[in-house]
């Protein structure tokens, strides 16, 4: 039973503050949905959590220890899916999945199973260049099942997915949490996340005033 938490986080991007004094906590077996209007800082927060961005204030804590104490251990815990799909058009769907499996130290057979899980089995030998937007996104999500990491960090994971695939993704997420994993995801649509915790990032009062002008 682990806990991933952040306290008093502040984020500055391009010399502008995005949010400040932000805190959260996620436990094994549950997820956290980041909600909020465009520009609220959902993506920024996720990047902080992944260690791609350094917080301007505050810190992240895993089971009581600061994440910055051992960033490599933190990276061994997380699976990151950002806006890009990380899919190479020149490789087949299976080769793409297998690459990420090897990177994560998983077996090649787990890659095939992951494709199956996301309804891509029939496209396994198709070069990824022939995949449509949504198929490509599903191929990216397949990485999650391959790398057995405990903390999933997902930036708008269901962009471009059709309704059936969104449901499939929700099932995968539920399985992950049932197995003791946790997930933080940013989304604009409703995704069923175990635990149902939502962190609403909002406009700061100052920003809201600026927009109201």
């Amino acid at each position, binding site marked *: 039973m682990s806990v991933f938490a952040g306290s008093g986080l502040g984020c500055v991007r391009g010399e502008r503050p995005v949010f400040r004094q932000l805190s959260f906590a996620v436990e094994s077996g549950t997820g956290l949905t980041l909600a909020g209007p465009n520009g609220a800082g959902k993506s920024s927060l996720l990047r902080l959590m992944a260690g791609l961005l350094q917080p301007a204030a505050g810190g992240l804590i895993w089971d009581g220890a600061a994440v910055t104490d051992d960033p490599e251990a933190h990276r061994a815990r997380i699976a990151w899916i950002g806006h890009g799909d990380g899919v190479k*058009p*020149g490789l087949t769907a299976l080769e793409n999945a297998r690459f990420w499996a090897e990177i994560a130290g998983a077996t090649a057979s787990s890659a095939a199973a992951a494709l199956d899980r996301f309804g891509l089995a029939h496209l396994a030998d198709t*070069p990824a*260049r022939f995949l449509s937007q949504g198929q490509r996104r599903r191929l990216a999500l397949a990485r999650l099942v391959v790398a057995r990491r405990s903390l999933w960090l997902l930036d708008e994971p269901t962009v471009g997915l059709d309704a059936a695939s969104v449901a499939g993704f929700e099932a995968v997420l539920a399985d992950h949490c049932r197995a003791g994993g946790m997930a933080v995801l940013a989304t604009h649509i409703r995704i069923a996340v175990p635990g149902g915790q939502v962190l609403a990032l909002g406009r700061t009062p100052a920003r809201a005033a600026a927009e109201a002008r």
Partner: protein
Amino acid sequence: MHRFANPARFQRFSAAALPWFAGAAILCLGAGLYFSLFRSPADYQQGETVRIMYVHVPAAWMALFAYLVVAAGSVSALVWKHPLGEVVARAAAPIGAGFTLVCLVTGSLWGKPMWGAWWVWDARLTSVLVLFFLYLGYMALLGAFDDPVRGGRAASILAIVGVVNLPVIKWSVDWWNTLHQPASVARMDGPTIHPSMLLPLLLMAAGFGFYFAAVLLLRVRAELAARRIRALRLAAMEVEA
């Protein structure tokens, strides 16, 4: 399947024509080699070295002709969307590149004893080198895309642009003061080659021409077969349950 209606007819034609072209190539090349190596006289200036001509000149002509074929195929593929055009262009390019290479190599082998240099940067030689690189660029472009259809189209555009090089090759010897000699055969006032040397030359040229036609047909047939296989495989992927 309408796309392959025309090629199907072509397959039938080519199957019938192929043996004839191949036979003619063997005959002409055999006779041409015999005459050019054993029966034609040495030149009054160049001596025995002149025999390089019987390979160099037909190769040079075919290098130009093959490029014309590539360009014509590209035009018909791009403008009239003729399904065979691109296949023919694709098939002709490597053969043409081969002829160009032969022309370059025999040319420099000939240049060393005659001119005193393997290579000079005169307009004829330079423009032929550019032709060679155009062929290479065409072939590189064909394979440079994930989608073969796109590669074909991009390469076709290049082939058409490259046509401007052909008149430069042909008339460079007249426009510039090149080390390479002006035309001896294809000239307004008739050939300046003695008939005893012209005959083997023309025989060899005919042989090269038939060889080109035969190999071209072969490559086109192979490409069409490959396409059919790809189409069948895709169809199977669709139907397969």
